[in-house]
């Protein structure tokens, strides 16, 4: 029982901390809205304008919120010794991971909701035949992205190395998945590489339900890939979690995690 209570309290505490941090609120909630209007300006003359770009923007918002939010929070708490203090209680790494994940899910959901609301009300963006389908697809996306942020948060040693490593991951995820630029603008070999990125599958599924007017049943493959990816990555978190940066991460463990995820996406890329 104390594990469930502890996890709920950790989630609550993480959310309270975020809500009381002005910089966290600006970067999590306000910044994505700036992106919305920048996209609207950039793509206003393209065919179908923002309707075609909204899946990509939702993907960028979901990925950056889930990935950076979780990764930086874990690294900061480890650097500050907060994780170490929790370590001398009966709380487990799983509780900390879930607490962080819940905070991230709530904050990203709030950010996406605000973005969607403004897109609909101010820019008149069309969300396809059913808004709830868009929400379901986004849940699958965030499920796939949050554990990647957690892995990043465990792998990065400190806040000096964390931004460099996360940007190394963030830019391919955004530019080679069709999120920032239409995928057909990229050369063929890069499009193949893009099929090995989880963000590509969120863009695909969102385009299906928002732009092509398809149902959820037609998004089986991308949804399955994101679901499986999330499970695998969450599993690897218990393998990689570090209470303090002096704990060795182990090249074998990092290798296993990366190999597992790469294998999944390589198989999907080959099949499709």
């Amino acid at each position: 029982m104390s594990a469930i209570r502890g996890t709920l309290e950790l989630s609550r505490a993480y959310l309270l901390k975020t809500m009381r941090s002005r910089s966290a609120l600006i970067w999590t909630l306000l910044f994505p809205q700036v992106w919305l209007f920048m996209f609207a300006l950039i793509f206003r003359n393209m065919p179908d304008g923002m309707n075609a770009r909204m899946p990509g923007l939702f993907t960028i918002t979901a990925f950056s919120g889930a990935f950076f939010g979780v990764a930086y929070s874990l690294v900061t708490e480890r650097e500050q010794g907060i994780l170490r203090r929790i370590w001398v209680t009966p709380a487990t790494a799983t509780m900390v991971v879930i607490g962080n994940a819940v905070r991230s899910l709530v904050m990203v959901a709030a950010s996406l909701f605000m973005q969607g609301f403004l897109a609909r009300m101010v820019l008149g963006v069309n969300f396809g035949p059913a808004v709830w389908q868009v929400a379901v697809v986004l849940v699958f996306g965030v499920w796939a992205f949050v554990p990647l942020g957690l892995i990043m948060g465990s792998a990065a040693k400190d806040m000096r190395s964390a931004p460099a490593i996360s940007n190394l991951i963030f830019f391919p995820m955004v530019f080679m998945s069709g999120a920032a630029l239409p995928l057909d603008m990229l050369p063929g070999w890069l499009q193949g590489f893009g099929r090995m990125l989880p963000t590509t599958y969120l863009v695909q599924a969102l385009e299906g339900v928002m732009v092509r007017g398809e149902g959820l049943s037609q998004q089986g493959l991308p949804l399955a890939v994101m679901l499986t990816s999330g499970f695998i990555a969450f599993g690897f978190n218990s393998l990689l979690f570090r209470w303090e940066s002096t704990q060795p991460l182990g090249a074998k463990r990092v290798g296993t995690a990366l190999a597992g995820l790469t294998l999944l996406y390589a198989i999907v890329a080959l099949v499709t």
Partner: protein
Amino acid sequence: MSIRTRSLTKTYGTTEALRGVDLDIESGGIIGLLGPNGAGKTTLVEVFEGLRTPTAGEVSVMGFDPSLESVALRQHIGAQLQATHIPDGLTAFEVLRLFASFYERSVPVEDVLERVNLNGKARELARNLSGGQKQRLAIGMALIHDPALLIFDEPTAGLDPAARRQLHEIILNLKERGRTILFTTHYIEEAERLCERVVILNRGQVVADGTPLELVRSSEGKSTIFIDVDGPFDPAPLLAVGALEQERRGAHYRFSAIDSTAVIVALGEVLRSQGVTLTDMHMHRPTLEDFYLEMVDDPEVADLAVGGESEVAVRKPVA
């Protein structure tokens, strides 16, 4: 028995942080762990908390092996770590409520706030608390599940005298409630005031272990006797019983002696026989600090003579 170690060793690469520590800590009371920087104090308490795995030897804390049964052990111990940050975006109440949720049983947050004198600060964000208040909150986090054994790592480091005094009161209250408190400190007078037992670590080994009084008595240090006299005074009889004259300025004399009692007795006779009046006198006995400096300055010191039935153990380093 709260803690028992046998031949406990911990190495980091080629550095030996602990070198064969044998320690038995019974339940109840305050035990101070002293030693210079790098002596192995923090490593030792972190082994007790299950944060470090020993390289060799045995360790049992509250009947648990900290390396293998850390989660179960942590239900029974409360820890305050050296240089730990408190989640500063939460209030004092919220911090304690969070930590209470990790344990199977906990005491009401209000009770803990009262115990650490933070009742008026419950709704204050941790980041706005003073250094002393933060440290008391850190102690409160360790008390939230009312553990039998408390391990504090330099709880008073960097605090002003008033804040230190407040923490001392909290620690003494815990002792009165039957808890066992093991704490590390660099403040010798703090250990002398609070502890029933003091363990001195040097270069990863226990070099002394006993009550503060026993340790002081086993000191090699000499007492210093200061006297002021009125009239012609010949100190020769005092020198005959072992006093060494250190200073003479007019009517002011300073002597040192191992057996200060013999010198005081001789002084009485000298004053009577020479018809001299004693106008002032005071004596400085060796302190725990003197003993501590003897032990850590010369880690090779071996088997000091310990008088009578004293239980003090002064240990010879094995390496």
